[in-house]
């Protein structure tokens, strides 16, 4: 009963109903099983998957990887680290993920990650030790779970021509009623809530208290009507700042650096209360399907070439001490950086790990505030 027979039968108008239904069944089964074959075929030359923040999914960071493996790694992007963790807890397996220091201990406690074998990373000797020696990482237990990659600040990028400063640069700028509807904010509580804490004058040591929640929530509620849009997409903020739709927005270093390179008159503020500072890095999933290529990703990210790009084009600090060699102190200061990360990190308010309960409560409260409650 081959296809030609059936066609002949159709032409002669003699195709039996049974033959027809059999054909239908066959095509149904074929349709249902097609994806299986395709997936197996593709598995052969698979690249490692890198799960990261929006903006890090660019070829410039993976030159070394590309040279070695011929292609870029696969990217998957998240907007908030809590969202990323939830997704992986739901069964999403990646090779390498990109948390920050505040989330790292909670990520480790899920048991979804494996310690990093530093002997497999050639550049490990050049990694700035203080970035590795963080609470929850090397400092306790002797395991290195997160290989530091980038560090920087969350602060205010503002248009020097549109925003009229009253006195010093300060977090009050994002609460300035004169610019209501022309201010922007990152949507993730992992940034915004902490900045709210700085604005409310809460010491990070006392973040987990009823009083802190009340005060920060009040500050965030006060800010909400002034905000044009909360977004996890830094490009949206950058476009709005460049068109003048926004006069100031909460951003990371990269937005200010990118806008400056476009010739837009912006400045990355150094608020008098201090900026929010953080270190982010990469972790390897315990079931990473391409473990060798996972190490290739890390190697590529720690390379000096990647570091130069991070500093020069994105304005972030890099974890490889050698990356700073090409930049003089003045350039670095202009970017809000220094060859000694501690100078910057301790000058601002350094994010710290919090409990899961706190994280959940914070996100819940902040989401309700954003929705207008």
């Amino acid at each position, binding site marked *: *009963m081959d296809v*030609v*027979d*059936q066609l*002949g*039968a159709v032409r*002669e108008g*003699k*195709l*039996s109903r049974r*033959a027809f*239904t059999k054909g*239908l*069944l066959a095509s*149904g*089964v074929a*349709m*249902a099983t097609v994806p299986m074959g395709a997936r197996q075929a593709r598995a052969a030359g698979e690249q490692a998957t890198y799960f990261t923040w929006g903006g890090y999914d660019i070829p410039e960071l993976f030159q070394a990887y590309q040279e070695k493996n011929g292609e870029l790694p696969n990217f998957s992007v998240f907007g*908030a680290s*809590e*969202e990323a963790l*939830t*997704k992986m*807890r739901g069964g999403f397996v990646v090779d390498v993920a990109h948390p920050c220091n505040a989330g790292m201990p909670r990520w480790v406690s*899920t048991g979804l990650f494996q310690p990093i074998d530093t002997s497999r990373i050639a550049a490990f000797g050049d990694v700035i030790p203080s970035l590795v020696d963080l609470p929850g990482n090397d400092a306790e237990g002797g395991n290195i779970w997160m290989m530091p990659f980038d560090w920087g600040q969350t602060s205010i990028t503002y248009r020097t021509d549109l925003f009229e400063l009253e006195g010093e640069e300060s977090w009050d700028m994002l609460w300035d009623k004169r610019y209501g*509807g022309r201010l922007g904010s990152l949507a*993730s*509580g992992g940034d915004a809530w902490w900045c709210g804490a700085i604005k409310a004058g809460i010491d990070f040591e006392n973040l987990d208290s009823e009083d802190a929640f009340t005060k920060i929530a009040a500050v965030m509620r006060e800010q*909400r009507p002034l*905000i*044009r*849009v*909360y977004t996890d997409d830094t490009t949206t903020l950058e476009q*709005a700042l460049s*068109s*003048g*739709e926004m006069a100031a927005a909460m951003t990371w270093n990269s937005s200010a650096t990118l806008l400056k390179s476009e010739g837009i008159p912006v400045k990355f503020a150094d608020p008098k209360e201090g900026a929010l500072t953080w270190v982010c890095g990469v972790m390897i999933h315990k079931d990473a399907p391409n473990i060798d290529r996972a190490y290739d990703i890390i190697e590529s990210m720690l390379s000096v070439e990647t570091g130069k790009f991070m500093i020069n084009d994105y304005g972030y600090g890099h974890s490889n001490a050698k990356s700073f060699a090409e930049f003089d102190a003045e350039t670095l200061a202009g970017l809000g950086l220094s060859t000694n990360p501690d100078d910057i990190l301790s000058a601002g308010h350094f994010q710290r790990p919090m409990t*899961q*309960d706190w*994280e*959940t409560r914070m*996100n*819940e409260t902040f*989401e*309700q505030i*954003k*929705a*207008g*409650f």
Partner: protein
Amino acid sequence: MADTSLSPAEARQSAERIKTSWFSALLYRSEALRGYLLMSPTILILTIGIIIPFFILVAMSLWTRDGFGFDTTLTMANYARTWEEPIFGALLQRSFWISGVATVATILVCYPMAYYVAFHVHKNKMMWIILMTLPFWTSYLLRVFAWKVILGYEGVINSGFMSLGLIEAPLEFLLYSQTAVIITLAHAWAAFAILPMYVSLEKIDKSLLEAATDLGDGPVARFLRITLPLSMPGIIAASFLIFIPTTGDYITPALLGGPDGAMIGNFIQLQFGPVNNWPMGATLSIVLMLWISAIALVFLFVTKKAQDKIA
């Protein structure tokens, strides 16, 4: 009994096989079994893709969050919360308002288009239909972004009005507002309104219209007494096709809504994402489903009554 006239030998063979195989015999006798077998790929996908997840959703909505995991004691606590805390009700109300306005707007805009093609186009109707659905050949996300470009601060509308000197500063209410969400939804779902309305308008017997004219009805009365009631099934179908999916829409309010344009779909996403409260997300999904069903039933009832009255 021959399968085809081309290979009688093979046909004989298969006839023999039927005699010997009990399964084939069973299949031959029972029509129901043949039917189920035919449907089996669909039933399988439906079971795995819809029925099982639905029961998981119902079960999960009765659990509560417990740190990273779930407390699996069954409780109605989540449902109580959706009732007590004002945020859920307000978001539901806003979602129904936004998608309700979008539905009405879509129907009002699309009805004349469907009407025109059904009554006044006589050649190449298919081409007209295809032309009207042409925008829907691009992805939904792309259309949403297109609206972002049109409505944006430096967008088409604002820069057009500015260059004409109609406005001094860009209109800010265009983007990141409920207006933006309504406009985008109304455009994005237009094809789903045009097609069912076209079909029901097309089916209307033209002699009824002639009869109405002969009996003294003017164009307006004729439309209200003949065309509108007879095209009601299309309008109802279109309303459902738009209202139900837009109420839970996620990406449009996320990209264009701004702080005041967030809808229930965004909040459900947050429960499964950063807020990390899956049971609450499941509860909200089910509450949304129940509300939509209730509204749909009321809508059906009202239109039925209205139709009876007109007829």
